[in-house]
């Protein structure tokens, strides 16, 4: 079996499970944990597809996606710090 196809299937399934945690999370920080891991999953999927089809422009897309995910997670956690929204 093609290993890149296996990586794509497994990481798609794990990002779907992270989406379950985003929907069901009791607090907003649980949703942030799921979002952080889902961004990493999708970055790995994009990099695997770029190496499989030899479209190396997609590696830039993966880098920009990782940077945007990191900045968004830091911004949302700084926005939620000190606010008691979970009660």
């Amino acid at each position, binding site marked *: 079996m093609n290993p890149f196809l296996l990586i794509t299937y497994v990481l798609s399934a*794990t990002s779907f499970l992270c989406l379950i945690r985003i929907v069901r999370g009791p*607090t907003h*920080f649980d949703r942030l944990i799921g979002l952080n891991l889902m961004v990493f999953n999708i970055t790995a999927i994009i990099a695997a597809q770029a190496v499989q089809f030899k479209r190396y422009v997609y*590696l830039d897309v993966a880098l920009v996606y990782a*940077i945007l995910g990191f900045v968004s997670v830091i911004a949302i*956690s700084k926005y939620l710090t000190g606010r008691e929204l979970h009660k």
Partner: protein
Amino acid sequence: MIFAAYFFFGCGIFFMIFGVLGILRFPDLYTRLHPAGKAGTAGILSIFIGLILYSGFSPLSLRIILIALFIVITSPVASHAIARGAIESGIEPWGLKKK
């Protein structure tokens, strides 16, 4: 070289599956941060090492190394920011709630 790449792909898939299982099954936010950090660094880093070994030594694998370095630097920072925000907004840990 190809079999080493397959070994690292298997390691990455293993870490990702059990990390996400821990995120779904653990009881608290602070315990969920532990498998999230492990899956975010170890799993993704081993998948990227496998991609580097598969594509060989080229300027294109240098770009994959750049993405892997970025993820290794920023994943603990994100986990620390989430934990600090949760502490400062008053979420209690799981074991202390039963007293």
